């Protein structure tokens, strides 16, 4: 165990250097973003800068707007005020820009949302073939590589309904990876899973983090936040209340609401 810790620390150090270098060109920039559902003000003045390779964990009570916020980043939800710039493209009503951004931003959902009428392999190759125009065989080869990476290659010909929840979520992660995204958004990826399956999904996410993927993760898995995140963000009532390095965040929370939340879940 100490061995892996040492290695983790060293790579962490390199990782931080890398972040310093990337500081000037954020991959995602959100400036003064607001969103309403009808009259309900879900997101209030969100400002956020994500630099390449950064790992951000977003937590907060339910209804705090954390899912809505990351869903705004690939325009699954529309924001009404402020600016969102992803990979140099501002999200507006221009559908072509939206599709461009979505192709570069992978998303993993709480309920997996695999396509039940397609095999696992077809689920994975659909995006590359139809969006990226990758030749079929090439797409299938890449898909098999990613399935191996999430340790599920032997299920390639099955249908989603034949897999367990944990397996389905790993397939969903592989499906996003097949698009070679620059950023991955995770919307409570383990909340719908049985306890014994959470670990297999988190392990895949940790692998991904170690390879330098830029990740925004909405989760209640505080262990994951502690070991993987560069920054932990606490949201409540549509605002980012507090953000800090995991160590500071968990050991010295500044805000009362953060303290209350942490006391409830830890």
């Amino acid at each position: 165990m100490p061995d892996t810790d040492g290695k983790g620390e060293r790579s962490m150090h390199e990782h931080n250097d890398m972040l310093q270098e990337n500081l000037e060109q954020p991959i995602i920039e959100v400036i003064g973003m607001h969103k309403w559902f009808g009259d309900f003000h879900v997101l209030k003045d969100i400002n956020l800068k994500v630099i390449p390779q950064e790992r951000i964990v977003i937590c907060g009570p339910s209804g705090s707007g954390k899912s809505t916020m990351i869903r705004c980043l690939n325009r699954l939800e529309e924001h009404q005020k402020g600016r969102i710039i992803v990979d140099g493209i501002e999200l507006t009503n221009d559908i072509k820009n939206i599709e461009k951004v979505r192709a570069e931003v992978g998303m993993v959902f709480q309920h997996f949302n695999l396509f039940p009428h397609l095999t696992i392999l077809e689920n994975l190759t659909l995006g590359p073939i139809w969006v990226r125009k990758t030749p079929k065989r090439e797409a299938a080869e890449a898909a098999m590589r990613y399935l191996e990476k999430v340790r599920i290659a032997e299920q390639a010909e099955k249908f989603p309904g034949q897999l367990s929840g944990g397996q389905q979520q790993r397939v969903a992660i592989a499906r996003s990876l097949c698009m070679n995204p620059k950023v991955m958004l995770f919307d409570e990826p383990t909340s719908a899973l049985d306890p014994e399956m959470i670990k297999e999904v988190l392990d895949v996410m940790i692998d991904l983090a170690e390879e330098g993927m830029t990740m925004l993760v909405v989760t209640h898995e505080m262990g994951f936040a502690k070991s993987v995140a560069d920054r932990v963000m606490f949201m409540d009532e549509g605002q980012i209340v507090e953000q800090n390095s995991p160590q500071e965040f968990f050991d010295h929370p500044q805000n009362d609401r953060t303290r209350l939340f942490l006391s409830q879940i830890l």
Partner: protein
Amino acid sequence: MITGSNTDAAQMKPPLRNIGVIGWLRENLFNNLFNSLLTLVTIYGLWLFVPPLIRWVFIDSLWFSSAEACRDIEGACWSIIPNNVSFIFFGFFPEGQQWRPLTAMLLLFALVFYSKNRKHWRQSLAIYWLLGLIVMGGLMHGGVFGMPVVETAQWSGFPLTLMLALFGMVGAYPLGVLLALGRRSKLIGIKSLCVVYIELIRGVPLISLLFMSSVMFPLFLPEGVSFDKVLRAQVAIILFAAAYIAEVVRGGLQAIPAGQYEAANALGLSYAKTMRLIVLPQALKIVIPPSVGILISAFKDTSLVVIIALYDVLKTTKVTLSNPQWMGYSSEAYLFLAVLYFVCCYAMTSYSRRLEKELHAGH
């Protein structure tokens, strides 16, 4: 000892009174006093009704006789069918040319049969159909390879029924899917257009549409311009069936969870690709049973074209019955028609059931 008795118990047969014929009878027909009574009444009813029916249909009946011979019998005179088969099936299609609609129909059956196998659902299938349609059209209309031209006014009987139903459905399905998508559109203009269309069409009977197509529609056309009557009836049937299909497909679309759209969007798929690759394949599979229901009613509704003086298979049968020689044998003729319609409709339902099972196999 205990283990021994357990194995015995596992292999023991159920008591005799619960299995076999007697068991079945006890279980299903005589399990209490009221049901026993019902069983007896039913048996009595069958005994009254079935033997005379069998005598009428099979024993006292004539199958291949002249009309005169039928005058002296008590049973059914099935001879009306073989004696008039060419008129019932092909109506006013000129004598001596009737091999043409027959070949066209056989070709159609062959194509339908070939299309049944899902392995054949490839691009080549569309080409076969296109070729088949050209050949069928050529056969029916003539004017090529020395075949005399037969105007559509003379197309009648069973080929007309089949044509109106099949092309009605083939035309109505895509239109219905578009209408369903339009009705769910966020664009107010498209949405209201589709809603108005669907509700208008569903609000009137098919007969009124057929009337409009044959009586009103020509009034709006400039002098000298006219559309073929069969084509107009065909269009009316397509427009009618499309409105119903739209509502059925809309039901299927509503059954697709929002997560499917979101996942497709998140991959960067456009609206059209999301629909084509993700949503419609799932939605259309759900609506196979009600779609087949519409197909069946469209098939039967084609008999309404008599109202605009088209001679479908029902009308040609009626004409046969108005022949003094064969007057009075309407039970036989209509029974024959009923069997004909039933065979076609049953083929459709049984295929839809098979398709449902096949498409469900994977997940």
